[in-house]
């Protein structure tokens, strides 16, 4: 219908990244990438209608902290999950801390194309600006008392600093055993660890298996 006003050139010649799931483009989203007004990450995982499995970390199940206790979520293909800003959340064996983000986080798992092994796990969040921030927190595994919190002002200092902040949060928590001993119930909590398994010390790798 719009033939006379249509653009004849292939879209690839006009926009390099018109399809974020294109094999040549998707690699840019391995960690986080600013895409227009949003920040997008795309992880390659086994994604079926029943479960999601990360090749390095195992089953992908998230936990959200609510006023009524912990809420476990089983993720599966074609199920959008949104964690609203401000809600502490973590993923077992993937995040060795509780992430508290001022921005909403949206997950959308897409199963693999026919003949492919891994699907696309899309994570989307809005770009923090101004005073918007995130923090990496530790709560007692027994009584949920907050033990430690490291804050990063993402809106002010930018996305590039989050990995260093995450590392520093884990390092400072693990540095003193007193941080891990709950002042309320006395429970000694396991070590924290980062998202990237390549950063694990042997002790952190052992902690990753625990929680």
């Amino acid at each position, binding site marked *: *219908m*719009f033939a*006379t*006003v*249509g*653009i004849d050139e292939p*879209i690839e010649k*006009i926009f390099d990244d*018109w*399809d*974020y*799931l294109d094999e040549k483009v998707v690699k840019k989203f391995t960690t986080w990438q600013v*895409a*227009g*007004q*949003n920040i997008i990450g*795309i992880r390659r995982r086994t994604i079926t209608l029943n479960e999601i499995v990360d090749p390095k970390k195992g089953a992908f199940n998230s936990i*959200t*902290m*609510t*006023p009524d206790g912990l*809420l476990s*979520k089983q993720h599966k293909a*074609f*199920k*959008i*999950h*949104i*964690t*609203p*800003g401000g*809600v502490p959340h973590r993923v077992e064996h993937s995040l060795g801390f509780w992430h508290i983000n001022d921005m*909403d986080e*949206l997950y*959308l798992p*897409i*199963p693999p*194309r*026919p003949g492919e092994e891994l699907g*696309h796990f*899309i994570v*989307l*969040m*809005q770009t923090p600006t101004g005073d918007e921030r995130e923090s990496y927190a530790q709560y007692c595994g027994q009584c949920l008392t907050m033990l430690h919190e490291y804050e990063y002002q993402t809106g002010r200092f930018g996305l590039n600093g989050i990995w260093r902040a995450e590392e520093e949060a884990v390092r400072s928590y693990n540095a003193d055993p007193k941080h891990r001993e709950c002042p309320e119930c006395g429970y000694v909590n396991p070590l924290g660890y980062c998202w990237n398994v390549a950063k694990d010390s042997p002790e952190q790798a052992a902690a990753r298996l625990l929680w």
Partner: protein
Amino acid sequence: MTAAYIPAYDIYLGEGDGSWQEASRYQIWTRKAALADPALSVLERRDGKVLRVPERSRVMHRIPGGVPHHIEHLFGFWRTTAADTVFIRAEMDDEVYYTLIVATTGRDVGTETVAWYCPKCGAELQSAAFPAARFGLRAFWNHALEQARAFNAAAARTCAGCGTTHPHAYGFDAQVDRDDEREGRALW
């Protein structure tokens, strides 16, 4: 007034009544359609020209804020949002899952525009701005349907420049299509 504390939202693609959902600061629409159904293709206006986003078994495409876009057979007008819209298309067996996500905060909902352009020469035929930040998303879709019906009833459908008549406009919800709107939905 204190807002309810909602620790998580779950939306299953293709389930529900097919309307837009508002979850925290996201506006989300999904549909599961038969692969044989007419494709919901994204068209964008770029410098007055029309760009078609190709269909693939998997597509994740960002429609930047400020770019007029039309999704064939889904809504019969060109929509311009202040916020980016993310379009995702995923085929699975003999079905297609479509998702539209508008991630928006209070400051960038802004103004939405509904417009029509001549399909032959590209001239603007009619447009109307809507303060979505003030009235909300549900009101926007009602406004768009009203505008579509006004467009169908007006001489504006015929281009003053080249004389081409634009097909009938239609709203978002096919359930409320009138005969002329149903005809328009099938065409573009």
